[in-house]
């Protein structure tokens, strides 16, 4: 066997592997162009990892490289954190400090929303997240018996729920009336 023939066979191995990766990408819903790009990225990754490689690596290695290439691609895609020019501010601008929380176009509105959510989250924490589902069901018309029948071990019984909320009334009203 000549050296040229050996190289040709080795190339064919890489090409076959690339075709397999492209087909895998297509099966997972990628466009042909994207599948080819990811396969190429995977191949480059394999070559970079093992510069001396002549024969095509095992398919498992190639799939792993493809997975990493896909992960890289989605990471790059989600890294579009360009802030619109109208929202860019200079660090030297003293107004920047108050401009930052301006998420709803109105800092006051954002403050109100946050205050409301802080309060409702505090209410949830006071009664306990484990009891919230039952309280919601009771408010929606479920009976104690139905609540107890559906209760998971980590959730309080209807009776325990009453005691818990009764004890928490001062804390609840105090927190809600600070809203």
């Amino acid at each position, binding site marked *: 066997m000549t050296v040229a023939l050996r190289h040709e066979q080795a190339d064919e191995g890489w090409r076959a592997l690339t075709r397999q990766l492209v087909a895998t990408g297509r099966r997972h819903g990628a466009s042909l162009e994207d599948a080819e790009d990811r396969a190429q990225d995977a191949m480059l990754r394999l070559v970079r990892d093992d510069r001396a490689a002549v024969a095509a690596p095992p398919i498992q290695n190639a799939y792993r490289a493809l997975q990493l290439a896909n992960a890289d691609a989605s990471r790059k895609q989600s890294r579009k954190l360009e802030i619109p020019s109208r*929202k*860019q501010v200079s660090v030297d601008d003293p107004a920047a400090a108050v401009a930052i929380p301006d998420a709803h176009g109105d800092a006051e509105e954002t403050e109100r929303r946050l205050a409301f959510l802080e309060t409702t989250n505090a209410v949830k924490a006071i009664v306990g997240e484990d009891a919230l589902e039952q309280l919601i069901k009771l408010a929606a018309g479920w009976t104690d018996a139905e609540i107890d029948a559906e209760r998971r071990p980590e959730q309080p019984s209807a009776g325990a729920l009453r005691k818990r909320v009764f004890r928490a*009334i001062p804390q609840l009203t105090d927190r809600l009336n600070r809203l």
Partner: protein
Amino acid sequence: MVVAPQTLPEGAPATNDAALLDGAASAWAVIAFAAELPATPEQKEALEQARTRMLHHAEAFGFDEGRIRQHLAHLAEARLTRSHAPPRLVE
């Protein structure tokens, strides 16, 4: 000109309408449950005041009591994963 990091990007889940409505519904459920308990008149009054304040704020976000109760029914239905009882709507 430099880019300033925003603590809350536009439409951030932390303060979007769905989160506010969820919060209002949860608070409403807690208050409604507490109001049925044998509390002192002062506690009953404080609960009523809390209910009014909560609703006042919720209304400013566009959620009246009817909307909150409707959402509660949906939440209850969504959470009823293991029950055989038919979900029922409030009013």
